[in-house]
């Protein structure tokens, strides 16, 4: 609700330094309480719409805030907007009722249920609260403006309070200062004024009245000194008062919104109680807000100061009390000032006052204003379900019975909606609430069910349970890109987890090791329509980051299709069973054939007018002609996600998102289904090597070791050939690294020669489903060199890595080369080296995440309001042109083929 937000702002920032005005388009701008829908509707009464008709419209017509004005509150303004003068530090009387003129005065708004606000007459939650004020016995400096006051005092004459710039230089100074402000901001301008004055100083005399000047210094946070004499806030205020408006303007303030004397407060605005609500503990005790505590201190000291002044107490006592008042007012605004001890609770924990409320990530602006909480959402653990469609989300029944969709009753759906009310909140599909046209919400219970059904008529809203096909927005944090929040169709399922098709794991970056995800149910027609059109899974197939598919087959689906496309022949029954399981009912494409191959089965899913030419991971051609896979095997390059899967992208280009997502689902299912039939599993035996391979590998590693030993010997003799620009030591390191890497890659070649499709670990690797040849090498042949920052491990002891090696030992073994494989088992030294790099990798991740997160936040903040205008230019919020044409050609990456228009394909198509 806009009005809630508004009052929070105006109370908090307004108290300290800014007034916010709600400029309503029609009425006077200064309406304290923002008006909600009802009077707005009434204003339209004279138009052709009848009042009845307008009132029957359920949607509120909100007023639009067109601008927010910032300014410093003047004492006059504070009095004007206040509805109570606060005189006593007491909060409640014996009965627990708020004291008149106390800080919890009912004229400042209500926080207790049952009470009515004395200012506006409304109840809790309706009344947004009203300001009050305290008359301060002596003026007090506002900390946040102390710096400004200091600069102003130094820039103006102590006698005549004119800005000490000679009248003749006025014009020149003005243009100079304005230029500085434009280029470097208001703070730079204030500094620049100082330079002008110091430069044009007439021997320390004012150019206007020729009075001799004394340097004013500031003793932080709020004390001003002239030579060794303290200037009291009264005097400060008097001087500031005398500065003429023109001088202030030249100096760089807007005298209409910020007269300098307002920065020395004679009156303190008291924020409404709704800003500082007290909480009642279980014991019945009241616990007041930090702000109330602070205000209590201020009022108490203020009272004492008044009494002492009236009683004619000695100056010292008054000064002391005055300083104390200054301290309390200062900490009321900011309790984390370096020079002041923070005000604390009795428990010793510092109070959270206005500044602390606003700033930082947990502050009002970033926590409550730039990000908000929502209703109608759910969060639980996710689990995979390849049986539901890619654009569906499985919602557990328990959740479906808590989340609701509002449906407005009309003549035609009355009977339909009555059924939901009849079922009530306990039976599915039922409903939880009914909303009357006047906005009253009524809970449906077993008892009230019948009465509610009777009452139901057009205009009522039934909040019915979530059902299959409803629109939901699904999200996983961190929401790094727009594919982290997509629109799915609800599918209500038994169980207790949210289900999603494994094909969409990539965009969400989800796995099922305990990940949780969030589900949001949009509540209005507009939001549902927008979610469906802009956010649905099929619209997000192509990533705007690189113009390739992000959603594709993963893991078993890839290895399944890979194996299937290699099957030479299978019984026709089996082929039909496969297709039937996938949801194909038309078998005409395979029945005519004598021999059915895996390729034929796969082809049955591809449209018959589709042509494709691509490559498999091994570089062999993959050809589809007229919807028939003629050559090659299917792997990640064709159907994978995340920037691979060219086949998918071409399907998308030719048939659109709708059909692609269906085909993708079928292809996905086909892969899994094939594995169901043929069986697929990997085990430790997959890492077994034949003895001849083992021998070859051992030979290779031994050879590498000998070579390295030779290099080291050469180095020690000083005969090693040096690379240009390197020392001999560096050259040695580079050569050793190269040699050892060569050895490990050699292992890879040997292994490749011995694996085949019988080896299921190899199938996963070759099809690109999971793992890499490197991981197979590490498991079965040799783990290899452990590198830190691109070098062999050299840290540890002086001249050696572990105490079991000799000083200066450069051999592979002593510098982190792991000769064994994971399956053979690694020895303690090797284990230690692996632990080193493992720890380094963990550190790297831990340090990188916040760094890149901050970079991202800055980028997003700087660029969030850039948009493409109707003329094709990219502009920022103030209309400044950033690019004349987006990306120099105006092409949307998500609609292009990897950021390009494929001219070659078009030309080829023409031939």
């Amino acid at each position, binding site marked *: *609700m*806009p009005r809630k937000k508004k009052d929070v702002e105006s109370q908090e920032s307004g108290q300290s330094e*800014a007034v916010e005005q709600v400029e309503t388009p029609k009425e006077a701008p200064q309406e304290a309480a923002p008006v909600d829908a009802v009077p707005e509707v009434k204003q339209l009464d004279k138009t052709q719409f009848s009042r009845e008709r307008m009132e029957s419209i359920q949607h509120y017509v909100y007023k639009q805030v067109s601008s*927010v*004005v*910032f300014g*410093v509150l003047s004492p006059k303004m504070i009095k004007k907007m206040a509805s109570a003068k606060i005189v006593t530090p007491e909060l409640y009387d014996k009965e627990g009722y708020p004291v008149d003129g106390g800080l919890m005065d009912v004229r400042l708004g209500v926080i207790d249920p049952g009470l009515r606000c004395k200012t506006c007459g409304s109840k809790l939650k309706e009344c947004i609260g009203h300001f009050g004020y305290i008359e301060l016995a002596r003026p007090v400096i506002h900390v*946040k403006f102390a710096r400004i006051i200091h600069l102003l005092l130094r820039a103006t004459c102590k006698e005549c309070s004119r800005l000490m710039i000679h009248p003749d230089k006025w014009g020149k100074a003005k243009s100079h200062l304005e230029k500085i402000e434009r280029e470097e901001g*208001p*703070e730079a301008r204030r500094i620049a004024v100082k330079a002008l004055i110091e430069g044009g100083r007439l021997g320390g005399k004012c150019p206007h009245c020729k009075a001799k000047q004394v340097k004013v210094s500031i003793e932080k946070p709020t004390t001003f000194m002239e030579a060794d004499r303290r200037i009291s806030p009264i005097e400060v205020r008097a001087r500031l008062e005398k500065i003429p408006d023109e001088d202030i303007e030249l100096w760089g*303030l*807007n005298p209409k*919104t910020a007269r300098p004397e307002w920065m020395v407060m004679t009156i303190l605005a008291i924020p409404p109680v709704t800003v500082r609500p007290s909480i009642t503990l279980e014991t019945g005790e009241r616990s007041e807000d930090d702000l109330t505590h602070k205000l209590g201190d201020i009022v108490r000291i203020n009272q004492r100061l008044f009494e002492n002044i009236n009683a004619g107490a000695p100056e010292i006592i008054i000064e002391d009390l005055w300083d104390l008042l200054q301290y309390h007012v200062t900490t009321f605004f900011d309790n984390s000032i370096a020079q002041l001890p923070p005000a604390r609770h009795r428990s010793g924990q510092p109070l959270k006052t206005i*500044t602390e409320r*606003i*700033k930082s990530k947990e502050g009002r*602006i970033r926590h409550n*204003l*730039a990000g*908000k909480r929502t209703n109608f959402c759910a969060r639980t653990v996710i689990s995979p379900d390849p049986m539901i469609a890619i654009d569906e989300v499985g919602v557990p029944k328990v959740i479906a019975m808590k989340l609701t969709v509002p449906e407005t009753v009309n003549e035609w759906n009355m009977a339909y909606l009555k059924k939901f009310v009849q079922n009530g909140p306990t039976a599915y599909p039922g409903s939880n609430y009914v909303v009357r046209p006047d906005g009253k919400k009524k809970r449906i219970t077993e008892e009230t069910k019948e009465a509610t059904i009777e009452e139901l008529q057009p205009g009522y809203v039934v909040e019915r349970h979530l059902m299959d096909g409803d629109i939901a927005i699904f999200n996983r944090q961190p929401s*790094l*890109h*727009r594919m982290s929040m997509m629109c799915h169709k609800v599918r209500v399922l038994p169980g207790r987890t949210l289900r999603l098709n494994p094909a969409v794991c990539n965009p969400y970056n989800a796995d099922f090791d305990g990940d949780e995800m969030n589900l949001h149910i949009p509540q209005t027609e507009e939001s549902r329509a*927008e979610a469906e059109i802009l956010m649905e899974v099929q619209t997000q197939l192509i990533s705007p*980051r690189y113009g390739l598919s992000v959603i594709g087959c993963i893991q078993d689906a890839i290895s399944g299709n890979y194996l299937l496309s290699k099957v030479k022949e299978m019984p026709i029954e089996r082929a039909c069973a496969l297709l039937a399981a996938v949801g194909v009912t038309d078998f005409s494409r395979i029945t005519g054939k004598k021999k059915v191959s895996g390729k034929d089965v796969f082809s049955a899913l591809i449209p018959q007018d589709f042509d494709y030419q691509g490559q498999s991971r091994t570089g062999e051609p993959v050809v589809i002609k007229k919807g028939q896979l003629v050559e090659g095997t299917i792997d990640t390059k064709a159907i994978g996600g995340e920037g691979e899967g060219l086949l998918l992208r071409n399907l998308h280009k030719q048939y659109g998102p709708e059909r692609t997502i269906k085909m993708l689902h079928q292809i996905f299912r086909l892969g899994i289904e094939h594995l169901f039939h043929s069986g697929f599993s990997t085990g430790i035996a997959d890492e077994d090597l034949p003895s001849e391979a083992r021998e070859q590998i051992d030979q290779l590693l031994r050879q590498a070791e000998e070579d390295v030993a030779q290099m080291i010997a050469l180095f020690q003799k000083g005969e090693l050939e040096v*690379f240009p*620009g*390197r020392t001999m030591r560096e050259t040695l390191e580079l050569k050793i690294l190269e040699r050892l890497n060569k050895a490990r890659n050699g292992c890879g070649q040997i292994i490749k020669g011995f694996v085949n499709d019988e080896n299921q670990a190899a199938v996963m690797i070759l099809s690109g489903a999971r793992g890499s040849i490197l991981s197979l090498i590490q498991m079965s042949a040799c783990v290899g060199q452990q590198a830190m*920052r*691109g070098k062999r491990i050299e840290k540890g002891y002086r001249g050696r890595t572990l105490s079991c090696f000799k000083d200066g030992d450069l051999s592979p073994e002593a510098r982190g080369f792991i000769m064994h494989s994971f399956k053979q088992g690694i020895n303690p030294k090797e284990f230690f080296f692996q632990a080193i790099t493992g720890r380094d990798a963990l550190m*790297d991740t831990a340090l*990188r995440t916040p*760094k*890149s997160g901050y970079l*991202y936040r*800055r*980028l*997003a903040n*700087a*660029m*969030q309001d*850039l*948009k*493409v*205008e*109707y003329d*094709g230019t*990219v502009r920022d*919020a103030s209309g400044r042109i*950033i*690019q004349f044409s987006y*990306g120099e050609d105006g*092409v*949307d*990456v998500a609609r292009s083929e990897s950021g390009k*228009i*494929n*001219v*070659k394909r078009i030309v080829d198509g*023409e031939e």
Partner: protein
Amino acid sequence: MHKDLEEFQEKLPLKLLDEIEALAPASKLKKVAKKVLEEYEAARIDAGEAVGLISAESIGEPGTQMTLNTFHYAGVAEMNVTMGLPRIIEILDGRKSISTPSMEIFLKSPYNKGEKIREAALQIKETKLGDVVSEYGMNIVDLKIELKFSAERIKELGLTPAAIGKVIEKPLASDAQVKVEGDGLTLRLKEKEEGRGLNALYRLKEKCKEVYVSGIKGVRQVLPVKRKDEYLIITFGSNLKKLFELDFVDTTRTTTNDIHEISEVLGVEAARQAIIDEVFRVIETQGLDVDIRHIMLVADTMTASGEIKGITRYGVVSEKASVLARASFETPIKHVINAALKGEVDTLNSVVENVMLNQTVPVGTGLPSLVSKKEK
């Protein structure tokens, strides 16, 4: 350009037209161009699209996958240059001094064929007095230092003791008197304080080692490299302005990775291109895929004001017109106070302010509104 393509000149980007002309047979130019136009129109970006945020996402998201502390290690003869996430942060911050400044110097013929490349390199490398002196003779009695030069090094650099003396005279003027004596120089200490001469003499010895003699200031290391069939020089340390004064340098291709320097010497447009190239190179070497358009947009926001502004609260963000947008980024209190002093008005034109007030944001579907005629 082929006459068949002329009618498409206004409608298609030049790059596409060139591609069409290169790929399609002349007879089918028109037909192909028409089809390309069709696809091009379909691929056009929609008005109102929040391209800024998409670009931010596209660079921010792979940021989490980039490695920290990576040093470029491709090839043996390359220099170690900061890469990876730290480099990206460095560029986007618009930092004035970068951690590993480096130039890639292309040379004019015949230097680029490898002839006299060593001499060229030596001319570029900054030489300090300490590099050419072979012997320091401390004369404690007279409080002077006698410098003997390494004849070989001087010859290589084409210097004479007299010339060196002239160069170092000024920077040492406050401490010593320089005099040429035969093959060497004598530095006579100017005594400021009585009795502390010995100390000052030793300090002078250390100080004079660091005095600039010849070459380009700031270039600490040079490395001639052969790339394809051309020789070029890679340096550690960067000073484009001074380098361009040398006549054997091919100024059209020589670059540095210091973006501010490019901006100063070659202008913002060049700096913009440098940002794009540098960021793209880092992303590429990390094996990530980000479309060039996103990087372009970032580079354009950084340079749109005519000078390089970092993506920081002092740079791009401080330029925003909206108080609330600035306040929502960093240091909210400061922004609100300054706004109050100036009596600023926030007209709620951008995204965050409207999010704060629960109003529709002026991008995408929030952009269009209905206009109706007022009844009289």
